[in-house]
């Protein structure tokens, strides 16, 4: 139809359309590397993390027959001997394959203290011959440890055998399933406290960077170009220095016989060294230092763009300097302040290396526990659940920020 209206032949229109398509494809090809990178490095890991936090097939793969036999068990009494014998046979096979440790870990997560029971039983069953085990498995299992006679143990096995589960999220907020199916507080409360502590520390760090960064950025923005550039080097130099070097420098400064303590003692301010390293205090002070450029740079960029005649006009019309700053300058520098605060806060919520190095046990943040579950306890599912909650928390905070401050009010320069 268009071809008739514009006087173009059908062939011309097709050519033009082909040309447009070609350009679109070309443009798309340009962004393909970025797209692939984003998918591989960002979308895929996060999707995997979310999936992992609810999906754990380990037990289902290790003892499928036992779980099948358990499927129509009421959960009230001890399962019948056929189930017990099947599990005893499975346990011997796993002991020989060297996989009994895996199932012990998994059952232990559902019912703490079971790891030693499973492992010791597996070790004793290794020596029993197959025929004996097939006929007499249940009795051997019950003889190996009293806990095999408790329905709780089998409920734990059944629970551990579920491929999809929300239990890791319950653990992340210090809750657990009871035998009856209800949800109660866990005996040891760890993670909720850690989330609160992480947010509190991030908030303190953000406030400290504002306190230190705002006056500095203000001074730099209104200094002569030469002086501003000179000062900028001092902001950027630590920014370019390795994170590890800066963190280690704080260790040298804050340790028991470090620079700060020897100075305090030499000047007679204190008699004995103050314990500063491996505390929450040292984590906060080192992170404030490390994150300060993230506050200063956006603030400086925005303040450079503020015309100083506004302030002069306000003062010449009778406003006090502080009042003029509050009414004129602060609202105009707010986009930079928002950007800096958001950057510092979000980076510090997920910070890992500095608390790990200078935090001791007192200054640990949620990211350190996630790393612990990834690297040491090998509970990747719980690590994924904790990580997903952290992601959710940050999205929630961003939403709140958008509600009250507005994301249009963010400016990096």
């Amino acid at each position: 139809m268009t071809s008739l209206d514009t006087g173009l032949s059908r062939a011309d229109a097709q050519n033009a359309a082909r040309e447009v398509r070609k350009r679109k494809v070309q443009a798309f090809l340009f962004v393909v590397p970025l797209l692939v990178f984003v998918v591989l490095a960002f979308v895929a890991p996060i999707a995997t993390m979310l999936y992992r936090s609810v999906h754990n097939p380990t037990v289902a793969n290790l003892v499928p027959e036992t779980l099948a036999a358990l499927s129509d068990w009421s959960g009230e009494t001890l399962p019948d001997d056929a189930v017990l014998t099947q599990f005893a046979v499975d346990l011997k096979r796993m002991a020989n394959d060297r996989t009994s440790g895996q199932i012990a870990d998994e059952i232990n997560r559902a019912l703490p203290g079971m790891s030693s029971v499973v492992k010791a039983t597996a070790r004793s069953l290794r020596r029993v011959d197959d025929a004996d085990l097939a006929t007499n498995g249940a009795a051997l299992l019950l003889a190996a440890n009293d806990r095999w006679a408790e329905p709780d143990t089998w409920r734990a096995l059944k629970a551990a055998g579920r491929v999809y589960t929300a239990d890791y999220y319950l653990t992340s907020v210090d809750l657990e399933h009871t035998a009856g199916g209800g949800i109660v507080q866990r005996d040891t409360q760890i993670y909720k406290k850690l989330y609160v502590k992480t947010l509190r520390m991030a908030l303190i760090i953000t406030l400290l960077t504002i306190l230190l960064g705002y006056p500095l950025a203000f001074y730099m923005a209104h200094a002569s170009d030469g002086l501003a550039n000179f000062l900028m080097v001092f902001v950027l130099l630590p920014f370019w220095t390795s994170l590890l070097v800066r963190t280690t420098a704080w260790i040298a400064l804050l340790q028991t016989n470090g620079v700060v303590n020897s100075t305090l003692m030499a000047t007679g301010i204190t008699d004995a060294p103050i314990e500063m390293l491996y505390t929450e205090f040292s984590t906060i002070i080192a992170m404030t230092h490390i994150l300060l450029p993230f506050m200063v740079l956006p603030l400086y960029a925005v303040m450079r763009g503020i015309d100083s005649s506004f302030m002069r006009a306000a003062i010449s019309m009778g406003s006090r300097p502080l009042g003029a700053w509050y009414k004129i300058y602060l609202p105009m520098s707010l986009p930079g302040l928002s950007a800096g605060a958001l950057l510092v806060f979000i980076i510090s919520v997920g910070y890992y290396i500095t608390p790990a190095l200078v935090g001791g046990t007192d200054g640990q943040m949620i990211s350190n526990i996630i790393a612990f579950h990834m690297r040491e306890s090998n509970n990747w599912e719980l690590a994924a659940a904790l990580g997903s909650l952290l992601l959710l928390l940050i999205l929630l905070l961003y939403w709140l920020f958008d509600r009250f401050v507005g994301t249009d009010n963010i400016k990096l320069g």
Partner: protein
Amino acid sequence: MKKNLTLLATLALTASPLAAQDLTVTSFGGAYGAAQKEHMIDPFVAETGTNILFEDYGGGIAEMKAQVEAGNIQWDVVDIEVIDLERACAEGYLEVIDQSVLPAGDDGVAAADDFIEDALANECGVGNIVWSVVFAVNTENGPGPQTIAEFFDTEAFPGKRGLRKRPQVNMEWALIADGVAPEDVYETLATEEGQARAFAKLDTIKADIVWYDSWSQAPVLLNDGGAQMVQSANGRIFAAIQDDGAPFQIVWDSHVYDLDVWAIMKGTPNKEKAMEFIQFATRTVPLSGMQDVAYGPTRRSAQALLPESVKQDLPTAHLDVGLKADGIFWADYGETLGEKFNEWLLQ
């Protein structure tokens, strides 16, 4: 799924610096690592021309577990404390070693008779040293505690205590300090009440503990004043006193003695080379070299080579006041107590 994640991680990190190595041997570093390098690694490299990357780790099975479960084996040979060996072997992180290929001692006695009993007790390892976890005090500011009970007495002996950040040995010590007889320690620790009792005792010094991860940090903490007393492998303190003249004292009361073995990571592509290294490193002469850091060799033929003067510094001279580390207990309870310990740390 772990494989996929690891693949992503590997893609992200691209070139691995380990690619050029024929064999990666992992041990505990510090003075002990230096002695192993001098008497085992360097002679082996000279004799066979193999490139060896000699790495450090802090002990425990976590890193082995991660490598095996992710199917990404980075180590070939690893030095393991027997307190962790049973668990690592039972959970399938180590290869089974054919002990019949071990060479006879230099005096001609067959390996099976030359090695001390515990050295070949586990099918996944070949004994390397007899060593001990002791505590040491810095005597610069006067004498320190002389018993485990005094180590837990913060009133009589104020100051920071450096402890290795894991339940092993700390739990045993807490019970002994609380009055449990050494021979009942593991039996007590197997019960809920015993575990609660150990944590309660550790609570009394919790505020004064400086945690460290790797044995090599122990003498450093004692030296720079980070702690007034530290838990340590005996050889590290011995080396600091011997080589640097440090004002340290080793306290043998209730030391927990153990063996270290050489083991091979499960699934390593260099298994033959790894076995070749272990055969070399556990011959009489390389083993006797471990006396440099006051660790007893695990071959009788190597013990015969030791001068009288070093024998009093070896754990074997103090067995009457010591407790033998129970690898089987820790194989069974390592996971449970590890988790409880970590929760206790965070409380």
